[in-house]
Every structure is written in structure tokens, then in C-alpha cells.
């Protein structure tokens, strides 16, 4: 088993005819993901890469039975695409698009909750259940099927960690990049809860970074609800306060959100925090033996 996605996933691509979407659709198909339709307003009726394109998500879902969506639209249309996906009835939406205004994200969160639609991202690499399904832009080749759940606010740092895990024979049940935005659709706590309930997942790696309070909330949740081993790394110990470190959400502001505070809180909750990012995989391995 894996969380959120699997062999039953039928994927819709929003913004499907764009260059980036086309490139990644090819990679997802090669990985074995079942892509059933695309949406590009104005291009309904066309066939792109052998996949039917629709003008609206509603019609695409009705005609193809898609149950998940991945979004590659330009950022001006990001919030609209997320709302359209949620309205179409799919229960999982993965938004790759970076640069959606924070207030747009804030306004659509209550609607997503009302519709019980899970959003991953925006500004994220997506998620993968190795050997089964990939909805995202991560390199499939570095992943191995297994029992480690990986959650991260980062993209390439997650690849780094996954490669470390795979190299020492620790495959992954599911890897989720929740994205680097201030208001993500899915949080660490949401993912931790899912991994705890997933019988296949035996241990969890959580990659956090500076900014916000998501790691602190995760620490409290782990202390109260998670019985599986958790190893964490927090990026940005050398980041200066007040500067946005690439990700919109990666900023220490008003004296809150520093790596030091997060590490202290995690350790205080009994979680193993690794200081050397090159030793995340080996630290987890030592916990499991």
C-alpha cells in the first residue's frame, strides 16, 4: 500500500499542452502513471500525446473518470485551475505551478476543505509511490519501492535524501513534496497522519526548513500520535533573518521560524534531528537496526 496515490489513480493534466507539462507527462507515462485526460481551455477536442484534451475539467472528469489532477498552468491561472479541479470532483490535486499570490491561496483554502479535496503544493515537486504511480516532476529513477515515508518542503533536497535512502536499500512507500509556499494545501501533520495509518510505512523522514510553524506543529503531533520512527532535517541553519531563501515560505520573520527553534522543538518531542544533510539516510538506517 501507499498513501494518496496508487494503481487506481486516473490522472488529469491541467495545462496539458504546454512545454513543461508535455515533458513531464511523457516521464509520468514512462513511469506507469495512468494519464486519462488533459485540460487546456480552447483546445478541447484535440489529442495531445495520445491523450484527449478538454476545454473544462468538469467535462474531462465526466468523460474519462479522472480522480486526480496535476496542474502546470501559468501562475496567473493557478488559483483558478485549483478551484476548477476541486469543483470537477477529483479528490487529489497536485499543483506544480510556482508563484501563486499568497492571498489567492488563502482564499481558496476554506473551499477546498468544504469539498474534501486534498491539494498538494503549490510550488512543489508532487508525490510518488515508487513502482506504482508518480504525479510530479521528480526523477523516478532514484526511487525504490519500500517502507519509508518521505515528506518535504523542498524539491532537490528531497531527491538528495531519497537517493541516500535508495543507495542503502531503504525504499520508499510514498514520497511527498508539500512545497515551499507560506500556505500549502497539505501540511506535515496531514502527511504524518496518513503515514501513521499506512500499514506499509515503517518509518518517516521529514525534511523541513526555516519559516512558519509547520515543523513545530509536526513535533507536537508526532509526540502525541506517531509511533513509527521519525528522522528530521531542517534546512537553513545559516540563513539570515528577514530574507526569503528562494521559497516564498522560507523566511525567518519577527524572530520566529528559525532552524534553531524548530530543531529544539523537534528534539524536545523526542525526534531524531540530523545536522549533517549527507547523513539523513544513514541515521535512519541506524535507527531501524
Amino acid at each position: 500500500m501507499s498513501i494518496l496515490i496508487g494503481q487506481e489513480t486516473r490522472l488529469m493534466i491541467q495545462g496539458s499542452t504546454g512545454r513543461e507539462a508535455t515533458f513531464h507527462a511523457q516521464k509520468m507515462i514512462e513511469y506507469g502513471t495512468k494519464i486519462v485526460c488533459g485540460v487546456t481551455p480552447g483546445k478541447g477536442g484535440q489529442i495531445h500525446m495520445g491523450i484527449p484534451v478538454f476545454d473544462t475539467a468538469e467535462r474531462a472528469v465526466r468523460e474519462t473518470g479522472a480522480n486526480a489532477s496535476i496542474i502546470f498552468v501559468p501562475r496567473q491561472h493557478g488559483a483558478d485551475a485549483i478551484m476548477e479541479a476541486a469543483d470537477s470532483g477529483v479528490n487529489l490535486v497536485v499543483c506544480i505551478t510556482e508563484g501563486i499570490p499568497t492571498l489567492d491561496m488563502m482564499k481558496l483554502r476554506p473551499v477546498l476543505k468544504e469539498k474534501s479535496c486534498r491539494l498538494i503544493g503549490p510550488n512543489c515537486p508532487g508525490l510518488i509511490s515508487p513502482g506504482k504511480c508518480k504525479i510530479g516532476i521528480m526523477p523516478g529513477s532514484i526511487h525504490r519501492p519500500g517502507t519509508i515515508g518521505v515528506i518535504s518542503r523542498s524539491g532537490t533536497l528531497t531527491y538528495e535524501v531519497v537517493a541516500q535512502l535508495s543507495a542503502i536499500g531503504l525504499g520508499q512507500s510514498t514520497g511527498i513534496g508539500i512545497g515551499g509556499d507560506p500556505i500549502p494545501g497539505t501540511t506535515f501533520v496531514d502527511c504524518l497522519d496518513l503515514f501513521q495509518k499506512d500499514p506499509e510505512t515503517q518509518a518517516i523522514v521529514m525534511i523541513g526548513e526555516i519559516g512558519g510553524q509547520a515543523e513545530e506543529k509536526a513535533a507536537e503531533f508526532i509526540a502525541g500520535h506517531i509511533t513509527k520512527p521519525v528522522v528530521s532535517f531542517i534546512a537553513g541553519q545559516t540563513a539570515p533573518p528577514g530574507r526569503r531563501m528562494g521559497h516564498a515560505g522560507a523566511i525567518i520573520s519577527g524572530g520566529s521560524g528559525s532552524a534553531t527553534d524548530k530543531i529544539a522543538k523537534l528534539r524536545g518531542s523526542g525526534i531524531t534531528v540530523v545536522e549533517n544533510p549527507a547523513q539523513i539516510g544513514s541515521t535512519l538506517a541506524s535507527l531501524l537496526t
Partner: protein
Amino acid sequence: MKIHEYQAKQLLNRYGIPNPAGEIADSHRNAVQIAENLLSAYGKVLLKAQVHAGGRGKAGGIIFATTMDEAERGISRLLGKRLVNNQTGPEGKPINRILIVDGSGDYIQEIYLGILIDRQMECPVIMASAEGGMEIEHVAAVHPELIVREYIHPVAGLYPFQARRIASHLNLKGLQFQEMTEIVTGLYRLFMELDATQVEINPLALSSRGRLEALDAKINLDDWALYRHPDLAGMRDITQESPLEVQASKFGLNYIKLDGQIGCMVNGAGLAMATMDIIKLFGGAPANFLDVGGGASEENIAEAFKILLADADVKAVLVNIFGGIVRCDRVARGILGALQTVVLDRPLVVRLAGTNAAEGIQLLETSGMRLLTAQDMEDAARKVIGGLKGEQS
């Protein structure tokens, strides 16, 4: 994006938030003229350096004048100079403009009023405190009970009773109670309509004449929403940013100058931070944060590499790339391309992993350039710090 106080003042005016009369000057002549007018009208003026940094008062960036003589001396001391404090770095920020305002106000109370997004609650929060004039972080740490917070529903928006509740918490009465609710409402509208990430009026002062006035204002805007606010996008002042950061932003590179000696170039923000962290862990200090992004082209890699070497503080360079979408052979070509035009006079360590890593390493190792390749992040960090020490000894 940060904007200047004088620009924030224009936006406050647009939303009907009262603030002292004043004008902006960008030349000595212009400044003298404005000072003369305001002095004859009010008898006292404040000269305020316009720089993207807080703590201006203590750094000598705000000067009080009651005569033209004082005003002219103040103008000369500010305009065209640089303001230096712990927020600006040692090189300081250029003072290209000064805001000159009515300085005659006599104030009996200072209030703090600010709005930002509470990331955990996923909604705007309005914060107010009767202890204005000092940093809200300080008040929050020492007297958290003095801060009133009003959380605003992200879709329903601010209701008038919430503005009244803030005024009531501040113990304002009568006319001031009414004025405060209007200011809160105006500031909330400004925050939402302009896609701000943070607005702060500190202090919002109560004058002896019984009026509330915004004596200073800070407004930060959401970079990602600027596409729908072209007028606000035009408020960017690149003279307040580091030249290398401006150069990097032209190529879509995320670059932040730091004070260490090891320059690093990485793809992805998280991996870039982790690379800085491992440099520190092994006894070095990063000279910068540089994220070349997920889909960097050969040209962008070359440009990023040139920016790194253009920084004289950089004594050694570490490249750490985990190829996903980015192909490592392209990264290698980008580096070698940059080295056709700039001289590599410092130790360089390159770690490539992921897509086409072997081809990339092969390209670098057979190029004849004096560089080291590394197996993994730890190996890379050790080698670059070793290279730096070798250079210094």
C-alpha cells in the same frame, strides 16, 4: 518587495489614513525648497532618509530641524550619503531621497498597528498594541498581554465590529474610537487590495489636538502578485538592493549575499540551504545563497557562475547539483562556458548527482581546468574547506 516610507505614505493617503503633511525630495535644491515651505507652515520639520532598512533613527537617518540653517545642514548630512546600521550590512544603503514632513506635532500616545498573514491560521491577523514606537517583536516577548490580535476570515473579510473591538482594546474614546475603526478598516483594505504581505504603522500617534496620525509606515508587497499591480511594481528601487542580487534576478536566479568566504551554486532552495548548512558544519562559512532553479539553462548556469566569481569575498567555490529536470552535463557545459570568459583563480569543487551526472563529471575532468570533483555533499564540503585552507596557508 519592500517599498520606501514615502511610497507607503502615498498608499496610506489613497486609503484615507491620516499622516503628517510632507513631501519627497531627490535633490538638494528640491529639499531646501520643501523644507522652506514646511518650516514656514509648521515651524518644525523632520528630515527622513529613505532607505530599505529599519532603525533609521538610531543610525542618524532622521533629523529634526527648526531653522533653515539646521535643515540645510541636515539635508547635506543625509542626501547622497549612505545609511549604515546592523540591518544594512557594512556597506550601508544609499540615501537618494529624503522625506520631509511636518515635525510640529505634539503626541501624547503611540500605538502600534500591523497586519500580516498568520500562516498557521491561514488568514490575515490584525495586531495592535498601546505600546507603539517600539518593535512589536519586543513587545510580544516582554508584554504579550498588551497585544490584541484580531483574526480575519479569509473569505468573509473584516467586519466593522472587529475594528471596533481593536479600538476598544486600546481604550480609545469618542472621536478617536471612531477614527481608529476607520484607520483599521482602511489599512485592512490596503492590505488585501494591494496584495501586501505585511503592513505596519508604528507609531500611530495620538496628537495633543486629539487626532490619530501615522508617523511611520512599512509596507511589504507580495512579489508574486505584482503582475496585477503594475503601478506598485514600478515602486521597486534597485539602488537599495545589492548589485549582484539585482544582476542575478535578471536571469531568474535566487541569489542572496552573505558574509562568508565559500561561494555556492546549487539547484533548488532547500538543497541550497542544506549546502550552506553543511559548509558551516565542517567549519566554513557560506558567502551566498544561490539557487539556479529547477530548469536552469546552460546560459543561466554560466551567468550564475560569473556572479559567484564577481564577488571578491568568495575565496573558494562549491557547486552542488542534484539533477532532476536539470541535466548535469548541461551544468558542466555552463560552468566550462563561463570559464571561457572569466578566469578561475580560486579553488573549485563540483559535486554532480542524478540525471547525466557521469557525463557531467567526465566533461569537467577532461576539460583541463583546475577543479576537484566530489562524490557526495560531505566530500564536497570537506574538499572546498580544504581548498580554502590551502589557499590561505
